């Protein structure tokens, strides 16, 4: 999985991704240039709630649906993120200020 300003792609593809349920290891590569983080949140397909600043997702509000998080990493880093994904819809996004709204999110359908 590759993060760059300001989009997230899986195996080079943007847009909705599909995946089998179970334990998943995300190989996250930040191509920058900005610092990015990664959150995996189960969703029902609607837009995630924002904090009062209007720029970041309210992580407390989606805390129960959050299955995995990766803290902010600088450009050029590669990290691994493990998660158990039950069948359902998920959104993977960067919650740096404005990044989610700027387009850094991707939907994932797990079956």
């Amino acid at each position, binding site marked *: 999985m590759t993060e760059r*300003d*300001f*989009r997230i792609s899986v195996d080079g593809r943007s847009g909705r991704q599909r995946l089998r349920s179970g334990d998943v290891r995300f190989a996250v590569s930040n191509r*920058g*240039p*900005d*610092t990015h983080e990664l959150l995996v949140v189960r969703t029902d397909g609607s837009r995630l709630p924002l904090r009062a600043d*209007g*720029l970041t997702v309210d992580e407390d509000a989606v805390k129960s649906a959050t299955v995995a998080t990766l803290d902010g990493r*600088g*450009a*050029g880093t590669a990290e691994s993120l493990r998660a158990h994904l039950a069948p359902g819809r998920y959104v993977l996004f960067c919650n*740096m*200020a*404005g*990044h989610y*709204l*700027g*387009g850094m999110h991707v939907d994932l359908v797990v079956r």
Partner: protein
Amino acid sequence: MRRTTRFAPLAVRGRRVIGAILATFALFSVVSVVLSISATSRSQNRGVVVEVAARQRTLAERYVKEVLLARAGVQVNPGVTASILRRSADVLLKGGTAPPVNGDDDETTLSAATDAIARAQLRQERRLAADLTAMGAATLAHRPLAAVPVTAHEHLSGSPVERLRVLAALTSNVSLNAARTIATGTDRNITRLIDIQVILGIAGLLTSMGLAFALIAATRRQTEHFRSLVTSSTDLVLVFGVGGCRYVSQSVADMLGHPEGDALGDGFAGFVHADDLAAVRAAATQGEPHEIVFRMRNRFGEWRELEAHVTDLRRDRHVRGVLLNARDVTERVRLEEELTRQAFHDGLTGLANRALFRDRLDQALARSARSGDPLAILLVDLDGFKQVNDSLGHDAGDQLLREVAKRFAEITRPSDTLARLGGDEFALIVEQAGEARASSVATRLLERLSDPLHIAHRELALGASVGIVLHTGGIGQSEDLIRHADLAMSAAKEAGRGRYEVFRQDMARELGELLGLEHELRLGLQRGEFTLHYQPEISLSDDAIVGVEALVRWTSPTRERVSPAQFIPIAEASGLIIPLGEFVLREACAQTARWRAQGILPEPFVTWVNLSGKQLSAGGVAALVGSVLQDTGLPARSLGLEVTETAIVVDEPAHDRARAELQELHDRGVRIAIDDFGTGSSSLAQLRRYPIDLVKIDLAFVQGVEHNAKDAAITANIVSLAHALGLPAIAEGIETDGQLASMRELGCDIGQGYLFARPASADDVGRILASALEGTKPVSAP
């Protein structure tokens, strides 16, 4: 090829090492300073970047507010903020001067970011800033936002406000992250720099310590090296400073047989010879002279001669003293003394030799010139030494000389110089002595010498002839004095030996006369100033001429006629007798041959030529006579050689050769006569060994025969002796009828003398011979 290790003095190596240490420190310091400056500069830049980046957030937010206010109709100009925002984003990326936010803000200058990530972030920020301001401008212009070309994102949507706020947030985020990246990179660089500086410091310290240790080790090695050199050297090394001797090498202690400490301070003086101490102290305190020789007592109590090289190192801060580098030269000095002794002493007797005698004499004369004191030189020649040498051998001769030297030494004072000049000649310098003292010394020498000497199991009595020369004080020439002493000694010999003579000036005049005569004699031989006269010899039985004696005559252009009695001894002494004798022989033979050719010679007829003892002892007479006879064609029987008694009684080797040569001539037919018989000491036995044909009686006896009973008796005995040997006798010097009568009475066979004929020229004698032959009448006195 093997490289040899070159020895570098410590001073040079030390300087190099210290130089290397300083260079290392300098290099490391420069690197450290450069790095520090660079780090400081970067650190300053980072601060500015962070400041400007933080300001971008404020500017983005301010721009969003100003756009919203402007859109609400408030009179603001978001364009200025937009310009500052974009310009700042550009400066953050490329470096340069960031524009002031407010009119009174200072301009901020920063350098371009170098970190790749930071640069990417800053590029992103610049794009976002452009998007933000473009979006703001479109919002103000009420243009559709979707038509605004944005480059930094793909999914921006929502209301214009939201879009502007998101873009401002993105711009702020990336700007701050870029600042953070730069700060982190700078921190990393500074950490690395600190690490490098620590490493450099440690490396520099270790290098310097290594070099310092190497230097210390080299210093130690070199110190040990020189200490070994000094301590193991046989040379003696001493250093003097204030308070006396400050250092002595082990070799000094070894030599002295005392610990080194004993020689330090003034202890050194205790080992130096008292006579040399002042010189050593002077050299040790002043550093001069540069070479001194002094004596030191060694462990065995012997005085050793030391030759020291003195080096003044008082100004050398490492020494601060005077260095004496000494060598034991005792053996060399002794050898030199021995060589000097040998050069100036007679090896046989141990007395001074001629060279030392001359030196002492010159010194004595110099003293005399200063003091005016007289001095005397005694020249002693042993009488009869030659006979001892000949009869008893050279070892006995040497023993005799040693004994004589010992006896002379007993008589002389220590201040006098006794020397052996060579052979049997001794010399003595007696200072502060006048004639009385010199005569007294000479008398005692002769007396002491007259005591019997026991040599080679024989008891010998020896005499000597002593010549004394007196120098009355003042300036004098040693050569003159020695020559005069020699003359006086010759005078003593002539006066009968066994005595002394004091030099007188007339002796010198005689000497001068003789020397002049010798010179003229030599010239006379070259110029042909010599002629022969012939004196007939008459048979006393029938008055017939039976021969002539050839007599040499010299007419010098300066002296006119010179007596043979005057020049023959000089010719003998100078060796000129050899060429003169040859001339006489050749001329006499040639003349006789001419007479023979003229047919005026009776038979038998013999021309007698005198042969000198020198000619005989020189050898070659037989060959010469043979050659002359051949050249002149004269029969051997017509030639007779007169040899004096003393000439044939010579030392053994020459004696034998002379006899052999005379025998050879006799065998050829040449007649041999003994001349002046009765004056020598020849014995009958000796005479019998010689091939003698005739005995010639000395005129001293002949002329006394008439009135002197002793002479008459001797003459009678000689004639009897000759006859007993079967030899005829000839009497020379017959001048009176009485003498003639006496000789006839004694039975003498032949006569010669003025009574018959004086020596005359060849022509005159030729005429006498011719007339005698014609008239066959006896020759009578003219």
